[in-house]
């Protein structure tokens, strides 16, 4: 395995109990508590109306969900294809390219796409996908490659077809590492989706942006705190999923 492959989140990090959701809930509760008691001016009151906050949060979750789903649909099959024997020679260049892509700042990707094409939800999703595809692709490839050769060999030796070996042996054994990659993509997306406001796609980023533009600290803080809480919750849920999907016997 090349050096580029070694940068990966360890598969199957244990879910740290209820700490993550507890912190997230505390953050959100504390924030609303503050908003309730603090004296808000008219701009703040308008931007921080409960409906507004809810709408921004829903937009954010939609962005993250759509882009992560698209990432999985694109990067997992690609990773499977690139680890087939016939594509062996392609694997290294594709990974190198993807790594280079990762080095481009996400705001750059977003603005570039917005300038070249259009603004809006679809464009934001495309940018998020371009950005988060790499960890999923890489972990899919690593997950499949680390499957013990002798197990694959045994499957082939018993007369399983290549497809049966892929579905019944390789993918189940790669699941923990693949989910670790998807988890990284999710967290990345929660963060990067705050930049979607620059393509007019809304989300919690528009709270942050408005906070900066109008110089309103409570607005900026609300956007930030909600983003952090969302990231914590998403990470916790991903960890749970990982535990459920991890095959028994490993």
């Amino acid at each position, binding site marked *: 395995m090349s050096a580029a492959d070694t940068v990966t989140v360890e598969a199957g990090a244990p879910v740290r109990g209820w700490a993550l959701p507890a912190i997230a809930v505390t953050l959100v509760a504390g924030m609303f508590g503050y908003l309730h008691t603090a004296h808000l001016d008219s701009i703040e009151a308008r931007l921080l109306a409960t409906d507004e906050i809810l709408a921004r949060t829903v937009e954010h979750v939609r962005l993250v969900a759509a882009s992560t789903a698209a990432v999985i649909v694109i990067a997992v099959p690609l990773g499977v294809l690139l680890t087939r024997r016939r594509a062996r020679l392609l694997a290294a260049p594709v990974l190198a390219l993807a790594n280079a892509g990762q080095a481009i700042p996400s705001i750059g990707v977003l603005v570039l796409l917005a300038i070249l094409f259009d603004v809006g939800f679809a464009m934001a999703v495309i940018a998020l996908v371009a950005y988060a595809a790499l960890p999923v692709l890489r972990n899919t490839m690593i997950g499949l490659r680390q499957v*013990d050769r*002798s*197990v694959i*060999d*045994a*499957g*082939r*030796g*018993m*007369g*399983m*077809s290549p497809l*049966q070996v892929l579905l019944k*042996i390789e993918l*189940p*054994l790669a699941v923990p590492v693949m989910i670790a990659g998807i988890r990284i993509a999710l967290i990345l997306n929660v963060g990067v989706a705050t930049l979607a406001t620059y393509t007019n796609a809304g989300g919690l980023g528009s709270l942050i942006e408005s906070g900066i533009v109008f110089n309103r600290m409570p607005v900026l803080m609300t956007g930030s705190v909600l983003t952090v809480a969302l990231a914590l919750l998403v990470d916790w849920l991903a960890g749970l999923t990982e535990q459920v999907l991890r*095959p*028994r*016997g*490993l």
Partner: protein
Amino acid sequence: MTDPTPSTPPPDVMIRLEGLAKRYPGQSADAVSALSMDIRRGEFVVFVGPSGCGKTTTLRMINRLVEPSAGRIWIDGEDVTDVDPDRLRRRIGYVIQQIGLIPHMTVAQNVGLVPRLLGWDKARIRDRVDELLDLVGLDPAVFRDRYPKQLSGGQQQRVGVARALAGDPPVMLMDEPFGAIDPITRDRLQDEFLKLQERIRKTIVFVTHDIDEALKLGDRIAIFGEGSRLAQFATPLEILSAPADDYVRSFVGSGAAIRRLGLLRVADIPGGGTPPSDGAVRVTEDHTVYAALEKMLESGTDRMVVGGNGRGERSLTLRDLLLAAARAKGEPR
């Protein structure tokens, strides 16, 4: 085949390799070259040879996990050099060198894999799994729902053997199946496997590094040199009594005459007088000459009384044993 070619093997030949060769891509030398041999139906053939001589490669050409560069393979009278490999492999049991149990499947799922591929119904698979676990000495009630990592190395190897037997294949390929086991367990597994083979009579190709394992298990032994040169292909007794060349002699190592005693049975020794009453040791016709000799030496006597196997009792002397052992040159055991 409807149009038998001149080289179609006779019916008692289960596996025929003809001019089989393999050169891996990018290699300058053949891993296996021009190998020809016939393996008879129900025969237990053991491949021995130094590391890298092409034993695994040859085995994997028989089930086409490695495609031969040249030559042909017949199994059960059929030229299988070009048939669909997946279907072929379901008819050939394969125990791979590294065991290769599938870690996220239970023992029962591992053993039931080939029957599932063959489309058996659930009840039949379950019965077969239990039968096989019994056969290899693992209590199904205890082991069927365990995962491979919950087994010891020896138990894993038994499951590997059970799994290879599951589809009741006429041919078994076994690549160092008892390799990673301590000598005592290994010895017991070998004994159990010999007993098992007496019942199931498969055609077995068995790979090992260990010449003593080969001598103990094989009906015939193929001793390979470098580049899969077939140095000798003969019965254990022939190999010990008449090694084909210096290579075989050095491979078998010292003590060939003594090891031969371990291949002869008391039943193979003719003659014997009426049993005396004084302190002779008692053995059965099934004892190896080696074991009988050991008993005599232990009790410091030069006589033994042979009983059992319905032949009535007879007595043999130390001298009878030694003469018989010296005379036994290359007779099948």
